[in-house]
C-alpha cells in the first residue's frame, strides 16, 4: 500500500541547536501511528515540519505520492493534513458554526454568509464526532475538550486524510477520552492516517498500530505496538548512557534549608507536595512538561502564592506572597524564559545584574555606579561571562552568557535557596558544562539548589537527589544515582519496579 505520508532523513536546526538530525517516518492509510519521545526529543518540530510551519533544512516529504522539499501551512491543508493542537485555535467570540464555516468555506470577503447552510454543516460534523454541542454556542462558553472536538469536526469536514493529534487527552476527563478514542477509531476505519502524540503509554497501547520513538532529534526505531512492552518503550525513549561530563558532588549535604509539607495551590494545579532541600545539595526536579514543576517554583518565589500546606525555610515557617517577600527571605529564582523574564535585553548587563539588589547595593537613595560596575565585573570574571564589558546590552550576549547574567542577578542577592528553571535550555554545549560547574560550585559553598530540568541526562548527572513530579505533585524522590529508566517511569506514572 502506498503510504499517505513519508518523511525521509528530515533535518532542521535552529541556530546552533539541531532539533532534527535525520528523522524518517511514514504513515499508512487507516493507521494510528504514535510518536513517542522525551521533552525536547523533536516531536513538536517534526509536527511543525509536517504541517508546514517549519521548512526542513534537508530531507524530503512525500505526501500521497507527491515529493516535496517543504510545505507551507496552506499547501499542507490543501493536501489534507490537519493538526489538532493541545490548545485549540478557535475564535472565542464566534459561534461553533461560524468557526467551522470560517475554517472550511473559502468565500470572498464580500459574499453573503449562508447561515443556514453553515449551521447544517456544523450540525452534521458535530454529530459525526459524537459531540453534544450546539452549533449556536459561542466557543468561549465551551470547555477545553469540547473545543477540541470542534477542532476534530473541522478536520473531518475538511476531508483530511492525515490527522495529527498532539496530546489530545491532556485535558480530557475519562468519559471524554473514550469519546475521543471512538472518533480516532472511526477515522482509522475510514482510511484516515492518524499521527498520535501522547505521554500516556496506556493510550498508545489502546489505540496505536505502530510507534516511532524519537530521541535527541533522531528516530531510534519504528515498531508495531504489539511487539513492545512498556519497559521496552521507556528503554527506547531514554536509552543512552549519561555522559561522565558532570562535575562530581564533593560535599555532604548540611542542614535542611527548605522544607515543604503538603504544599498546594489550587490556582496552578499543584497539590500535596512534600519535599526537603538541604544546604549544599542539588535536588533535581524531573517530570514532563505540564507536570507542575514551574508552577511549584512560582509558588516558592511568591508569584502565585500557595493556598494550602506549609513552607519552612531554615526552620522558620513562611508565607510567601510576592517576589519581594521571597527575595527578602533569601530565595532566588532564575526563571525558565530567560529572554522574557530573566534578562532585560535593552539594559546593560551591569544594570541587569544589580536589579534585584538595589536596596542593599545602594543604601540611601542614589545609585553608586562604581559599586555597580565593580559588582558586575566580579560576576563577569567569576562566572566567565563573555561580553565586552559591564555596559554591553543584555541582548548582545549569547544564550549561555545571558543565562549567566540571569544567574548573577540572583547570586548577587546572596540567597540561601537557589531555584533554577531549565538552566541550560537553548544553551550551547560548552556554556552548558560551564553552567553545570557554576551550579556545582554554588552547592559546594553551601547553597541549597532546586534545579528544574527537562533534560534527563542533566538531572541524572547533576542531582544529589531527584524529585519527580507528575500531574501537580511529587510522585517519587529518587537517589542521585537512580537510572534514567526509573525517572522516566515515575514521570510517566509507571511504578519503577514494574519496568525494572
Amino acid at each position, binding site marked *: 500500500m502506498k503510504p499517505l505520508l513519508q518523511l525521509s532523513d528530515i533535518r532542521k536546526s535552529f541556530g546552533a541547536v539541531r532539533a532534527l538530525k535525520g528523522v524518517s517516518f511514514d504513515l499508512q492509510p487507516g493507521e494510528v501511528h504514535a510518536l513517542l519521545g522525551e521533552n525536547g526529543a523533536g516531536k513538536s518540530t517534526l509536527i511543525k515540519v509536517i504541517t508546514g510551519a517549519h521548512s526542513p533544512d534537508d530531507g524530503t516529504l512525500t505526501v500521497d505520492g507527491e515529493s516535496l522539499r517543504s510545505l507551507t501551512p496552506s499547501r499542507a491543508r490543501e493536501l489534507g493534513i490537519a493538526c489538532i493542537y493541545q490548545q485549540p485555535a478557535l475564535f472565542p467570540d464566534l459561534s461553533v458554526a461560524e468557526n467551522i464555516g470560517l475554517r472550511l468555506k473559502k468565500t470572498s470577503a464580500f459574499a453573503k454568509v449562508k447561515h443556514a447552510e453553515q449551521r447544517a454543516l456544523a450540525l452534521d460534523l458535530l454529530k459525526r464526532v459524537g459531540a453534544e454541542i450546539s452549533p449556536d454556542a459561542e466557543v468561549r462558553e465551551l470547555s477545553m475538550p469540547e473545543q477540541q472536538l470542534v477542532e476534530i469536526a473541522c478536520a473531518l469536514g475538511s476531508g483530511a486524510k492525515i490527522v495529527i493529534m498532539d496530546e489530545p487527552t491532556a485535558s480530557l476527563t475519562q468519559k471524554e477520552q473514550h469519546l475521543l478514542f471512538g472518533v480516532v477509531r472511526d477515522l482509522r476505519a475510514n482510511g484516515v492516517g492518524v499521527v498520535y502524540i501522547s505521554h500516556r503509554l496506556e493510550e498508545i497501547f489502546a489505540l496505536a498500530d505502530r510507534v516511532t520513538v524519537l530521541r535527541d532529534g533522531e528516530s531510534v526505531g519504528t515498531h508495531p505496538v504489539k511487539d513492545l512492552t512498556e519497559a521496552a518503550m521507556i528503554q527506547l525513549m531514554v536509552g543512552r548512557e549519561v555522559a561522565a561530563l558532570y562535575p562530581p558532588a564533593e560535599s555532604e549535604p548540611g542542614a535542611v534549608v527548605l522544607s515543604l509539607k503538603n504544599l498546594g495551590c489550587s490556582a496552578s494545579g499543584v497539590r500535596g507536595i512534600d519535599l526537603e532541600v538541604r544546604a549544599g545539595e542539588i535536588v533535581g526536579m524531573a517530570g514532563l512538561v505540564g507536570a507542575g514543576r514551574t508552577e511549584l517554583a512560582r509558588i516558592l518565589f511568591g508569584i502565585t502564592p500557595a493556598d494550602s500546606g506549609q513552607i519552612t525555610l531554615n526552620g522558620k515557617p513562611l508565607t510567601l506572597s510576592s517576589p519581594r517577600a521571597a527575595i527578602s527571605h533569601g530565595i532566588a529564582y532564575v526563571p525558565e524564559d530567560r529572554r522574557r*523574564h530573566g534578562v532585560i535585553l535593552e*539594559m546593560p548587563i551591569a544594570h541587569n545584574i544589580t536589579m534585584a539588589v538595589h*536596596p542593599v547595593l545602594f543604601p540611601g537613595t542614589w545609585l553608586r555606579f562604581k559599586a555597580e560596575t565593580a559588582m558586575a565585573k566580579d560576576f563577569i570574571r567569576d562566572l566567565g561571562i563573555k561580553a565586552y564589558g559591564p555596559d554591553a546590552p543584555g541582548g548582545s550576549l549569547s544564550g549561555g552568557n545571558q543565562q549567566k547574567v540571569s544567574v548573577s542577578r540572583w547570586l548577587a542577592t546572596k540567597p540561601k535557596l537557589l531555584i533554577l528553571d531549565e538552566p541550560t535550555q537553548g544553551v550551547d554545549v560548552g556554556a552548558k558544562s560551564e553552567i553545570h560547574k557554576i551550579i556545582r560550585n554554588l552547592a559546594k559553598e553551601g547553597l541549597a539548589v532546586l534545579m528544574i530540568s527537562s533534560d534527563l541526562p542533566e538531572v541524572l548527572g547533576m542531582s544529589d537527589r531527584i524529585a519527580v513530579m507528575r500531574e501537580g505533585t511529587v510522585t517519587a524522590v529518587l537517589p542521585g544515582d537512580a537510572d534514567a529508566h526509573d525517572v522516566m517511569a515515575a514521570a510517566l506514572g509507571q511504578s519503577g519496579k514494574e519496568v525494572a
Partner: protein
Amino acid sequence: MNGKYSREITVAAALGLLLVALAIFAPNFFELQPLLSRFTSQMPALVAAIGITLVIITRQIDISIGAQFSMCAVVAGLVAAAGMPLGVAVLAAVGTGVVMGAFNGILVAWLGLPSIVVTLATMVTWNEMLRLWQQGRLLPLPDGIQWFGLSQSAGQGVVIAVAVVLLLAAAWAMKNLAAGRHVYATGTDAEAARLAGIDPKRVTFGVFVLMGGLAGLAAVLNLVQSPQVQPNAGDGLELKVIAAAVVGGVAITGGRGNLWGVLLGLLLLANVNPALTHFHQPPYWERAIQGLVILLAVVADGLKRSKKTA
C-alpha cells in the same frame, strides 16, 4: 544613524538648521525680549513634558494632563483670589494635581485598566466639571501674583529657572536613582521587573502621581504669566507634550527615551509658529508642519525597529 543618541542628534540638527536659517533670513527672531517671552511661555509645557516622558517610558499614557492643568490653574487662581499667599496657591495646585494623578494611578496600576481609556474618562470628567463650575469665566488674579510680584524680566527668570531646575533634577534622578531605573525596567518588561523584586504597580502609580503634581506646577508657571486665569488654559496641552516626547525619541512602546530628547522635541515643535511668522508665511501651516515632524519621527522609529527585527 544608529548610535545611542542618534535621535537627539537628529532633532538637535533640525532645530539648529531652523535657527541658522532664521539667523540669516530673519535676524529679528533673536530680539532678546520677544525671544525670552516665547521661551518663558514654553516652560509650563516643558514641566508637563517631564511628567509625560516618565509616563510613556513606563509604557502608559496620560491624556488627562491638559484637564489636570486647567483644574489646577483654577484652584490656584481661586486660592490666590481669596487673598492667600502665593505659596499656598502653589501647594493647592500641586495638591490638586497629585490627587487627580493618584486617581488615574489607582485605576491603572491596581485595577489594571488601560491608561488610554482611564485618562480619556478623567480628561472629559475634569473638563466638564470645570465647565459646570466656572462656566468659562475668566478669573482675575490679585496684584502680586503675576510674575510673582517681581518685574517682568525677573519673573521670567524665575519661571525659566524653576523649569530648568526641575528638568535637571528629573534627568539626574532618572539616571542616578534606583527609582529611575525601576521606571525603565517596568516599561521594558513589567513581568521581568516583578520577578526582580520591583513592584511595577507601585512604579506605575508613582509615575501617575508625579505627572499630576507636575501638571499642578506647570499650571502655576503658566498662571504667573498673565493677570487672569483661563479655565481652559490646558486645552491641547496633552497633544503638545506627547508630540514633544515622541519627536524627542521616547518610545511609545515603553522602556526607552530620555528627557534631553524631549526638551529638543518641544523646542523644535514650539518654534514652528514663530518661525513661520518671521519668514512671513501664513501661520495656518503650523499644525501641518508639526504633524509632518511627528510623522517623520514615528516613521523613523518604525524603520529602525523593522531593521532590528529583520
